[in-house]
């Protein structure tokens, strides 16, 4: 189950996000890490230090690409220049699968650089699936879409978020990057049971799982990736891997980034749950 067509039939284990404050440590100490996730946009450039670092990382580690601006859910079709640059990077990294968010963020060629929530409508699911298929066909690599944290819901929605995710995944036959922190954040912001979400996701489509920390405000929770993972999120993770099996897991830590060792230690806590899941089946 964890090795499926949506993650290139790999079984990658526990990874962490590759972030610039850790470059020196990684390149000089060469710590044992199962894999790194890179933010594609940081390396969709013509040259210079970022690509030099990436090439050194690629010599020693497995790398998976994660994007933040493909905007599968935008009404317009994917930007061709974006796709061309992304394909160059895919060839460089040989990423076995590629992920980006189930959201929108650009309109008429103007970019918000945010992960804006989708209206959960059948029209949006159809257009999003069209975009996912187009990206996959262009890049020739499996695609997994990630559920985002959200702070708003639209009146026009015709289904729940997880029904929408499933609709898009089915229509485009893509994988799912299940972010259990995002599920938790959204469940608090929109008052739903996060286990309903995890239990509804087609386990056979889960290519990867994200875990992360967040920030709690008086009236809502913000997905800030600047804290350790909290227990309720670990419980969702436990449930997710009970269903999906020993799935490639990645810890995101993007702000107030601590030492490499601390981030890696936090990520490896996932081992507590992964140890018993090698024979997991979807229930």
């Amino acid at each position, binding site marked *: 189950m964890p090795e499926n067509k949506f993650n290139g039939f790999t079984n990658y284990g526990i990874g962490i996000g590759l972030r610039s404050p850790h470059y020196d440590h990684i390149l000089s100490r060469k710590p044992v890490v199962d894999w790194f996730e890179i933010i594609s946009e940081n390396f969709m450039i013509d040259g210079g230090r970022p690509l030099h670092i990436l090439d050194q990382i690629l010599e020693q580690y497995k790398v998976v690409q994660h994007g933040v601006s493909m905007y599968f859910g935008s009404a317009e079709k994917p930007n061709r220049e974006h796709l061309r640059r992304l394909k160059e990077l895919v060839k460089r990294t040989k990423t076995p699968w590629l992920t980006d968010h189930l959201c929108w963020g650009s*309109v008429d060629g103007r970019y918000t*650089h945010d992960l804006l929530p989708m209206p959960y409508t059948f029209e949006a699911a159809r257009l999003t699936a069209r975009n996912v298929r187009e990206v996959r066909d262009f890049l020739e690599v499996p695609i997994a879409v990630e559920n985002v944290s959200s702070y708003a819901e639209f009146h026009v929605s015709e289904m729940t978020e997880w029904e929408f995710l499933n609709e898009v995944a089915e229509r485009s036959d893509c994988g799912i990057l299940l972010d259990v922190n995002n599920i938790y954040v959204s469940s608090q*912001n929109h008052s739903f049971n996060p286990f309903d979400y995890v239990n509804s996701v087609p386990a056979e489509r889960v290519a990867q799982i994200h875990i992360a920390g967040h920030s709690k405000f008086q009236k809502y929770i913000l997905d800030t990736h600047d804290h350790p993972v909290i227990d309720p999120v670990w419980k969702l993770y436990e449930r997710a891997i009970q269903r999906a099996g020993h799935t490639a897991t990645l810890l995101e830590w993007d702000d107030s980034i601590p030492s490499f060792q601390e981030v890696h230690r936090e990520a490896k806590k996932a081992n507590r749950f992964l140890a018993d899941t090698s024979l997991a089946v979807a229930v």
Partner: protein
Amino acid sequence: MKLATLQRAVARAVMQPLTRSERMKRSAPGGGRMSTYAARYIKPNDRLTSFERLEIYNRQYWLRVLGALAEDFPGLRAVLGGQWFESMCKAYLTECPSRSFTLRNLGARLESWLRQNPSWMRDRQALALDMVRLEWADIEAFDGQAKPPLRSEDLREMQSPQLRLALQPYVQLLELRYPVDDLLLAVKHGEDTADFTSNAIQERKKRSKVRAVAKLEPAQIFLAVHRLDFSVYFRRIEPEDFALLGALRSGKTIERAIEFAFRKSAVPAADRAAFVQHSFQTWATLGWFCRPEEKHARRESPREKGIARNHE
């Protein structure tokens, strides 16, 4: 409601400037009350109104894009002052929102926009323009393309005076009216050490930065912004170097580029050969040369074309 219609409406609200107190405006894009506008699209919940939920995205948008510009243009911020810089950025981003998938390109149109809106540079127009040009060149030099450098065997083939050299795309050439390179380095150095200093020291640094800007006198400089071992450097060059490099970049032959470089030069004729030799040696050592593009290679003199045909 069509997806495109909803997204256009929400994006307009998200990208609308905030109030002075960094809250979402009470008036909606195109008129009317923002609370009504938000309620048309967004559900309230038991803790937040539609307005408040939309406001989270509105504030996040501005936090993100203003933060990106502040990170990319610390020198311009020092020249204009923090508050004025932020107001200028808001005006710029309102007129020139991002048209790229990457925040790296957010400041790509800032120089041209400032030229069209000079009042945003107050009484420091020349200084501000120099600084924004230098900071954009810094970005371009950092991750610009590097072609394979010219090899010694390439040079051996280049005996003809009609031959051309190309410059690495990441090398940026600037003619500036102020020595903003020193100022930018001072500003960046101050930022690098800020985390480790007390508030009092940071205040002193801030005051000294302001004094540095206020004291900066005009002085024409020529600069090559380049990178070496993946770090960006600002290298001052002579006016003749600047003209020579510019001419090579534009596709002139080496011979014509040298002629062009010394047209108005004060360098005595007897010293020019040594000057050129030293310059070329330095640039070759820094890896600035690469083979010219095919379009330049093909743009040969009629005499050379004749030779080529004879070979065929």
